[in-house]
Every structure is written in structure tokens, then in C-alpha cells.
């Protein structure tokens, strides 16, 4: 456990150290590479802003209307079986479809319960460990104009659910936090 703790606290420092050492060894202009990357990052955030605004407002409205609680209650037997908190239901349900929507949901969960609460930590882990499966599958299959993607969706969604369950287990055995 102490190794894991050390690693998750210092993974970023170790990573940056390795990256910089590579740059020095190859005599690259690390500083200007970094700055060029930052400029790309700026564009990314600016591009992200409209969707985030649209979706965080919509999710906020949905949250305050009380409808999410009702939906969560409906599917709570399944969630309880896997020891998953009901508050995570909207995140899990929408994750395969839309990345920006679930970013908005995860953000509002973390600001409501706190990023270091059980819900905040599990939500973060789910966001990191799962992908927008249906979205990805439809992009790739439409590129080659194949419509029948049942198999991909089924296996992909099962794998996402495995990711969710393992995220909860990771929290329970204490490797996130």
C-alpha cells in the first residue's frame, strides 16, 4: 500500500522528470516545445468552453429539478447489488454516449460532494477508466460504412461496467484516495 501511495502521489513528478531527461539527452529545446504545447492546450480549452457551458447548465437544471433522484431510485437495485452509490447513476448511464456530458456530471458531483469524498473519488476513477464506447464505436464504424456494430457495443459496454465495478472496488480496498 505504501508503494501505491508513493506512486500515486509522485507519478506526475516521476513522469515529468523522465520527460525532461529525455529532452535534455536529445538536446531538444524543451522550453519552446512546452510553449507550443501550451498554445495547443489553449485552443482545446477554448473549444471545450461552449459545450461545457451548455452541458453544465443543462445538468444543473436536471439536478435541481429532482428527476435524477427518481431515475437513480429506479435502477438502484442493480447498483446496490454491485455496491455502487446511487448518486453515480447518471454518470454511469451517460458515460458511453457523451464525454462532455459526463465531464459536466462528474464535475457537478465533485463540487457537490467534494473531490476527495467517496463519490468524488469513484466518479474520478470511472471517468479515467472508461471511454465513450458508443461514440467511439460509431465514429470508427461509420468511417468504413459498416452499420452492424452490435458485438462491439455489447462487449464494450460490458467492459465499461467492469471498469465501473473495479473503480468501486479500488476505492473499497483503498488504492484511490
Amino acid at each position, binding site marked *: 500500500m505504501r508503494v501505491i501511495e508513493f506512486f500515486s502521489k509522485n507519478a506526475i513528478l516521476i513522469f515529468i522528470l523522465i520527460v525532461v531527461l529525455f529532452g535534455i539527452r536529445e538536446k531538444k529545446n524543451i522550453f519552446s516545445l512546452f510553449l507550443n504545447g501550451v498554445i495547443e492546450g489553449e485552443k482545446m480549452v477554448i473549444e471545450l468552453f461552449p459545450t461545457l457551458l451548455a452541458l453544465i447548465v443543462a445538468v*444543473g437544471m436536471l439536478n435541481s*429539478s429532482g428527476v435524477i433522484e427518481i431515475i437513480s431510485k429506479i435502477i438502484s437495485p442493480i447498483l446496490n447489488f454491485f455496491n455502487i452509490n446511487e448518486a453515480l447513476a447518471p454518470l454511469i448511464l451517460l458515460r458511453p454516449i457523451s464525454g462532455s456530458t459526463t465531464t459536466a456530471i462528474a464535475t457537478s458531483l465533485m463540487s457537490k460532494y467534494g473531490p476527495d469524498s467517496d463519490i468524488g473519488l469513484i466518479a474520478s*476513477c470511472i471517468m479515467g*477508466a472508461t471511454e465513450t464506447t458508443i461514440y467511439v464505436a460509431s465514429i470508427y464504424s461509420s468511417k468504413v460504412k459498416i452499420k452492424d456494430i452490435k458485438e462491439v457495443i455489447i462487449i464494450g459496454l460490458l467492459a465499461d461496467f467492469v471498469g465501473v465495478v*473495479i*473503480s468501486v472496488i*479500488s476505492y473499497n480496498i483503498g488504492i484511490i484516495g
Partner: protein
Amino acid sequence: MINKIWCFFILIAIVFGFINGTYEEVNNSIFSSISSTLELVITLFGSMCFWSGIMNIVKNTSFINKIQKILAPIIKILFPDLKKESEVYKDISMNMTSNIIGLGNAATPCGLKAIEGLQGSNSSKNKLSNNMILFILINTASIQLIPTTIISIRMGLGSKNPTGIIVGVWFASIISFLFIVFVCKIYFKFRKEG
């Protein structure tokens, strides 16, 4: 898709707000959400730019080749019938590498090239080949060295240990990746290609 979701959210929220008597909360949430989006974007701005800068160094050093080397035996197991010199192999390798270092913008173009390449050797053009199924699924598995976006958000919301989730994320995504490979390998034994 997202268009429908958004309209659906707004309609449900307003209609349900009137039914449930929570319309005042719904109304107020619009304004509180706007300001919390702005706060989030301001904090995200710094850390997203920072990560994008670091990852740009990775992209331009041989660090990226190192990751490709580590991946080579894994790709061999996943796609045993692909030749190392083939264009498809290179696209798949680049796609997986970009995903791992979190360069989604770089991963998608090579991924799309790879799927076209796989379609080239697909025996029936309107059905996914085994390789194509596995390749798409790998892209839905989200194996990432540093989950930068979520760490940025956690930083923005004042977490005491924003990176504390890394090991858990690796654990969960590796297990779901293994799940995909395992299920596919078994499924492909029974599946008729073409």
C-alpha cells in the same frame, strides 16, 4: 446524439420542475451553473495547458518510440496476423501510443487510418472483421498513463490529492482492457468471419 441529449435534459428539467414544484430551484440553477462553469474553465485552463505542454515534449522526443517498443509485443498478441512493416501496423501502434499518453487529438486520425487499412484486408466489406472489432474495442478501453483531464478538474475543485486516483484508474482500465481481450479471443473462436 448530443443535440438530442441536450434538448431532452432541458425539457425534462423544466417540465419536471413544474410538476415537482422545483421550478424555482431549476431557475436558480441556471445562474449558479453559469458561474461554476466559468470558475471551472478558469482553473482547467492552467492545468490543461500545462499538460498539453508536457505531452508536446513527449511527442517530440524518443520517449514516444520507447512506448511504441513496449507496445510491440502486446500488439503481436492482439493482432498476430499483422506484419510489422505494414502500414496498418504502424497506424495501430501510433493510435495506441497516442491514447496512452493522452493525446486524443492525435489518436483519432491514426485510428481512422488503421480501421480503413483493416477494412482493406476484410473479406466481407459490410461486416466487421475480428481485427476490426478488437481494434475498435481497444479504443474504447481508455488506457492512459496520466488521466490529465480528470486530474485537472480535481485540481480545479480544490482536491487535497488530485493525483490520488492514478493507480485506481490504471487498475480499473487494465482490468477492463484484459476483459475485452479475453472476451474477444473466446468469441472469435466461435465467430464466422466473412
